């Protein structure tokens, strides 16, 4: 195994082009588990932690550009108000020690269907900034996940940043697990209200081969909600929203839960999350 330690981003891209089989490592919270437990041995590790530019985030207009090295702990502390859905999901990641190392970009690189960042990124329409020596490109989050632990990155590409729209309305993330820490989601759900667009965004985690949106649920709620009058949420609308979210999932039975349970729990999570978000929206009138 080789340990590659670039001093600049340009050098990192050059190394990835030369060694496309190299595994990028940032917080190590996935990569080192694989190595420690001998589940896989990368040909090379490409250490991205020396690059200070990756540890920065910038607010470009209504978009936050989250560098690939920004840890969950810093996201929670510094961006909780502007990215509430992603910050809520970040608070449920592992433990303080894990959040001190892990990153959203690492979650994207691993592309586990259970990753906590994915539902809020889907719900708010984030964009992944990928780069190689051939140039940079923007990948809409809905096109990023291509299979179980597979993503749309080319072998020579690295994630430079994630562009996340600053919240324009209430956002919620909710997750089912056996305890309140150190939990890989049995299933999870995120929603984001965009009152200006009269849109409801959704993201489903750990209940399909990839994280995914629930487009029918989004269209239904966007059309049914009383955006102008800000009246109370019709329980029938909330229930139907939950059903449509559950219908968008394609869960399996595994060690963390049964498919039938995941489907049921998702409907509950979605119904509740929409209720919380709608109550916040009404409260802000």
């Amino acid at each position, binding site marked *: 195994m080789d340990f590659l330690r670039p001093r600049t981003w340009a050098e990192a891209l050059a190394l990835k082009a030369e060694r496309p089989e190299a595994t990028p490592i940032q917080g190590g919270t996935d990569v*080192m588990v694989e190595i420690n437990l001998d589940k896989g041995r990368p040909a090379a*590790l490409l250490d991205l932690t020396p690059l200070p530019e990756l540890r920065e985030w910038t607010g470009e207009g209504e978009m936050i550009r989250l560098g690939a090295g920004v840890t969950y702990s810093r996201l929670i502390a510094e961006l909780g108000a502007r990215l509430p859905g992603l910050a809520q999901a970040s608070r449920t990641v592992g433990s303080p020690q894990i959040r001190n190392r892990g990153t959203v970009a690492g979650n994207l690189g691993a592309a586990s269907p259970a990753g906590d960042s994915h539902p809020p990124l889907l719900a708010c329409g984030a964009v992944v900034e990928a780069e190689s020596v051939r140039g940079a490109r923007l990948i809409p989050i809905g096109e990023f996940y291509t299979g179980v632990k597979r993503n749309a990155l080319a072998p020579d590409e690295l994630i430079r940043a994630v562009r996340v729209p600053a919240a324009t309305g209430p956002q919620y993330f909710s997750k089912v697990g056996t305890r309140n820490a*150190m939990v890989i989601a049995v299933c999870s759900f995120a929603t984001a209200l965009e009152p200006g667009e009269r849109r409801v965004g959704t993201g489903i985690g750990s209940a399909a081969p990839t994280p995914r949106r629930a487009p029918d649920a989004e269209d239904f709620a966007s059309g049914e909600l009383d955006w102008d009058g800000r009246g109370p949420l019709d329980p029938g609308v909330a229930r139907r929203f939950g059903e449509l979210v559950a219908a968008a999932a394609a869960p399996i039975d595994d060690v963390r839960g049964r498919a039938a349970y995941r489907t049921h729990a998702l409907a509950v999570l979605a119904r509740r999350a929409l209720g919380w978000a709608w109550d916040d929206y009404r409260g802000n009138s």
Partner: protein
Amino acid sequence: MRVSLTVNGRPMTADDVWEGESLLYVLRERLGLPGAKNACEQGECGSCTVYLDRTPVCACLVAAGQAEGSEVVTVEGLTAGAEPDSGLHEVQRAFVDAGAVQCGFCTPGLVVQAHALLADTDGVPQDADIREALAGNLCRCTGYEKILDAVRLAATRRHPSPSPPP
């Protein structure tokens, strides 16, 4: 490969480090610092918690090469400002006094993580904050109540309540 870093204030170098090796392995097996414990090797148990550049992390999830040039403080290094007679840091003393140590295996990780919590907290932390801070440190003996007592004890000793007005 060679890895050079500062551990507990001393420059140290490890040679013949395998590229996939963890910081934990380097500390324990190459640098003679067995305080951080090796258990789950997947970040679940927190028994390998150390400070890496002043941030508590699971040493098992840091590739040794990533620690090149960094500053590591292990449980052995907490006693730099220790009580002169006991050689214990105040957090360690509180764990002993509160009976928060049974088999002792999880103790170094808990001590480092509790140390970090108290360094970030003014006064005595709320129970919910203690539980959150220690959520990634597993103990299989004591059932945690004594551990919570120890953290509260350490915090209270550091910030004694002001005496009531005469």
